[in-house]
């Protein structure tokens, strides 16, 4: 994107987003405990873990939906808790697992929502030309330009997912969180998305990818974090985390890494 070059320069100390001893609980049920993590610009970190391990809650904490019950989160060395909402949206964007929209917005209208953070209280007015250009470019990159005037409720899950990606691109933030972005995509669009992520990573963007797809984690991630029952079970380079022992502990199944490429084969036998 146009000003993504500035992303890598805008993070003194080389940490885009840092979590320090973060705790979170719904009412009395703890969901995340003692989460200390940092994500750097120009790196893709995959967060893996079984269902209910706290991955999506972690995303909710990082975009400011939830407030940690303990610890602190900093974005570009500024505390997230006291940051105004629009400013937060200029730093961090999110591609949700599934976009929930009860009303028939067009694709263009939804992608344009990505520019909300920059337009101040200009409700009711036309967007500035720079915003219009960013929206056009985002739709082109995500391959949804031809769907611009279609209603979101008429699109397939995969197309809706690409609209979410276009909105993230329009938002143009130095930190991007993607929650299962490949879940509804066909193989071709999965590969295109990974190429796109690689390109924005090279421009200095910090990417956090929540995924169940261990092959993507193995092939694309610079770092992998494995969550288990709300705690960090392992973190490090893909080769360190995506090993039989860690995956057996975290997922309760045995996985075999294929020797030639970094791919995984699910072994039906349960871990002991």
């Amino acid at each position, binding site marked *: 994107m146009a000003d993504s070059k500035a992303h890598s320069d805008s993070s003194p100390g080389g940490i885009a987003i840092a979590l320090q001893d973060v705790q979170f609980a719904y009412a009395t049920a703890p969901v995340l405990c003692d989460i200390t993590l940092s994500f750097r610009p120009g790196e893709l970190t995959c967060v893996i873990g079984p269902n209910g391990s706290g991955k999506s809650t972690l995303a909710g904490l990082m*975009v400011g*939906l939830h407030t940690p019950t303990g610890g602190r989160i900093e974005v570009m060395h500024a505390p997230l808790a006291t940051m105004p909402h629009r400013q937060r*949206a200029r730093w961090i964007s999110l591609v949700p697992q599934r*976009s*929930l929209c009860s009303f028939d*917005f067009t694709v263009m209208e939804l992608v344009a*929502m990505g520019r*909300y953070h920059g337009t101040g209280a200009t*409700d009711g007015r036309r967007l500035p030309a720079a915003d219009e250009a960013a929206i056009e470019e985002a739709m082109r990159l995500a391959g949804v330009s031809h769907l611009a005037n279609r*209603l979101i409720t008429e699109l397939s899950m995969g197309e809706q997912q690409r609209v979410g990606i276009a909105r993230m691109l329009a938002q143009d933030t130095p930190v991007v969180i993607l929650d299962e972005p490949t879940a509804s995509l066909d193989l071709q669009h999965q590969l295109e998305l990974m190429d796109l992520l690689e390109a924005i990573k090279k421009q200095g963007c910090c990417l956090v990818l929540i995924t169940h797809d261990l092959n993507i984690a193995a092939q694309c991630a610079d770092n992998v974090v494995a969550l288990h029952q709300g705690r960090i079970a392992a973190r490090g380079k893909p080769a360190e985390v995506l090993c039989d022992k860690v995956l057996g502990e975290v997922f309760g199944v045995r996985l075999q890494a294929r020797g030639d490429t970094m791919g995984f084969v699910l072994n039906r036998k349960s871990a002991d």
Partner: protein
Amino acid sequence: MRYAAVLVSIAMLLAMLLSLCTGPSFDHGVVLTLGFPTGQILHLRLVRLAAAAIVGASLSLSGILLQNLLRNPLADPYVLGLSGGASLAIMVWIFLIGLESQAVHLLPWESDVLGMGHTAPAFLGAAGAAACCFWLGRRTRTGSMDPVRMILAGVIISTITGALMILINSFLPAYQQNHVYFYLFGYISEITPAWLLLVGALGLAGAWGGGLFMARTLNIASLSDIEAASLGVSMQKTRLINFLLSSALTAISVAIAGPIGFVGLICPHISRRLVGPDHRRLLVIAPLIGATLLVLADLLARISATWLNHPVPVGVITALIGGPLFLYMMRNTTGWR
């Protein structure tokens, strides 16, 4: 959008003119006449017209805000029990004032105390019902909103407030019961006091302006909580403002005309069909459509009353026309525009 706004405005003005020019004449028995009225008749019809327009616009706006708040196109102040809460609060108010002063209050605004009339209790009632609805409609574990649970809570609140109103009504003197009965169905009166219309018009203008100012925020608030948060919208603040505005609008409409169903449900749907779901356009069109529909419904109520020689509550007309219309739209719509 411009065409739609112009067409709807013309339709509203025509409906208003028709409403002004149509009404019973008492010169040669009660017959329906068409012609521009003068003197006292013009004054009475203007009052009724203003009341219908303010109530229609308020209900429509309130419906849009509640549907946005719940992310559910089936929400409206009547379904969610806000109208019921406001009406019950007014009933309790009339009852208590009546007990204290032993006065005869045929219509709610006759119990004007503290110079605030019954709009303050109506607001408290609507806000109380909305708060109950939101509290009951939250998921116990995560605290997030469950729209289906909220609508069910609203239906139950409506039923309970309806039962309590009938109970209170049974304690009122017989001559008053008939008037309250009309009020419970939604009745627009030509003797609505000017101060109440002024309060209503100012409240409506404020809420309308507020809604338009936060139109883009409301668009984003239609998405899921996590998407809204990531796009820079504080859902807590947006919900609170939305909650206060929709409660105030419901209070205005109930204070003037009692609980009227279907206007808050139908008008947002018609508006979405005309201009789509973007609140920047929707909030311009919907109050105009609400005003048009209620002015026409009130005109029908007056015509029916002339034929039947008996007053007909406008709420009966909106339910009889709005209900089937809503079912028709529901069957013929793929998505909720």
